[in-house]
């Protein structure tokens, strides 16, 4: 499926916002991802959807290697071949009334569409965002514009509360959603006593369940991060 680049601009050091026009009818849930074919590279790059509507979608990605670096140099009007609507996504019906939405770094983007979906489902989410330092913060305003409480932490204390997301957990919540680096996910997994859904990251081959490249062991046996995931229920994870 082809998508046209509407905008591809930096929003923080090494972090880009990519607005694309194209078919999103296959996208079913927040937390799903797409696989982008970047010209000159063999494997596609998996990037989660930050938001979408019937005309297109917004992705936010970090340049972590040659592929995403090349992507960051593509321009408005260029087209990208993308496999969309991959993975399971978050289930906004399988949580309590007052969920925490916890994101760290480039794990933050899919939580934007998730928070919108939670509000649409009548829930009252509280958002906790963690970054390394002030200059790396992005998307904070967009979350605040949704009218939800947003708690901010930075590792160096240059903005918000100093420390990690787990240092600012409120008393009053009944479930959680999380996306971020593995150490953050494991800390949240331990710190939150409620049910939760966590989105995992893994190097992928195909992204649609064929190659078994991204398998993780769970309490229910081996699962593919790209197909049965990337979102796993807390109870499934053998941490």
């Amino acid at each position, binding site marked *: 499926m082809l998508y046209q680049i509407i905008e591809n601009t930096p929003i923080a050091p090494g972090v880009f916002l990519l607005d694309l026009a194209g078919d999103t009818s296959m996208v079913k849930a927040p937390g799903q991802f797409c696989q982008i074919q970047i010209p000159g590279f*063999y494997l596609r790059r998996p990037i989660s959807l930050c938001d979408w509507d019937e005309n297109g979608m917004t992705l936010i990605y970090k340049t972590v290697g040659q*592929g995403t670096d090349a992507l960051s140099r593509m321009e408005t009007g260029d087209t990208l071949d993308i496999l969309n609507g991959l993975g399971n996504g978050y289930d906004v019906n399988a949580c309590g009334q007052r969920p925490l939405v916890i994101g760290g770094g480039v794990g933050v983007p899919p939580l934007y569409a998730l928070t919108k979906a939670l509000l649409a489902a009548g829930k009252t989410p509280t958002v906790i965002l963690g970054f390394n330092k002030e200059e790396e913060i992005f998307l904070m305003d967009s979350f605040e514009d949704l009218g939800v409480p947003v708690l901010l932490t930075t590792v160096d204390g240059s903005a918000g509360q100093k420390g990690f997301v787990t240092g600012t957990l409120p008393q009053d919540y009944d479930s959680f959603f999380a996306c971020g680096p593995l150490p953050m996910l494991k800390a949240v997994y331990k710190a939150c006593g409620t049910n939760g859904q966590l989105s995992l990251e893994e190097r992928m*081959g195909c992204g649609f369940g*064929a190659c*078994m*490249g991204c*398998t993780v062991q769970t309490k229910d046996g*081996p699962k593919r991060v790209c197909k049965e995931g990337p979102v796993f229920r807390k109870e499934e994870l053998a941490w």
Partner: protein
Amino acid sequence: MVNLSVNLCGLKLDNPVIPASGCFGYGKEFAEYYDINILGSFSFKGTTLEPRFGNPTPRIAETASGMLNAVGLQNPGVNHVITHELPDMKAYFHKPVIANVSGFSIGEYEKTCALLDAQEQVGIIEVNISCPNVHGGGMAFGVSPESAAAVTKAVKAVTKKPVFIKLSPNVTDIVSIAKACQDAGADGLSLINTLLGMRIDLKTRKPILANTMGGLSGPAVFPVALRMVYQVCKAVSIPIMGMGGVSSARDVIEMMLAGATAVQIGAANLVNPFICKEIIEQLPEEMERLGINSLQEIIGGAHA
């Protein structure tokens, strides 16, 4: 009207396009994208006697024009394949399928092959003696003519269906191993499996793959695969399934000219899930352009 069908050990395939083992699962994920009954057949995920989790991740690394994998034969074991995967497959694939088998001892190959030979849906058994990603198994049998012949002989004794032996390119002389398999009774040969390779992460200075090394596939290996199919074709009289980096209708035709009766498509499926459908659709046009009436007639055409 051009003719795409080929005869593979008595099995009449509508076309020679066969997704390769390990790149197509049991077909289910692809059946969500297109009707996979248009395929000649497909070779399902490598199956062992016992369930296997496989290697730790990362299992995948990118290369120039290709990829490395070190999945390590993750599969649910032959019993689960027979009780779940094959019955499920009936709902979306109605042609004889190729059962790909791996093992860690000759006894294990025998047991797994015998169990799959008894399955009506299985048309061909493809014995993988060349997996580079599993220590102490798989490839150990594929690196010498003697051990390759021993596996072939053992499997042939417990099966009635055509047996193809899948060969490793990671050997000094693939022709001598191919001949040994033929002499031991193999009905056909599949080649090539992946080429052993590795990548190192420049930041961490550690190998990218948790298994350190993995199998290289994709367009990067096509000329190597083509050369080996050509050499083996010259030396044996049994049919060959050619594979290694095939990514287009033109590659399929080239592989057949080198001596392949059928052509397997591997890594290309992982990048473009529609690739086999596109190749099957492009073949007639490409044949007309090249003046080919029947694919069966061009097999080994480069050997004139």
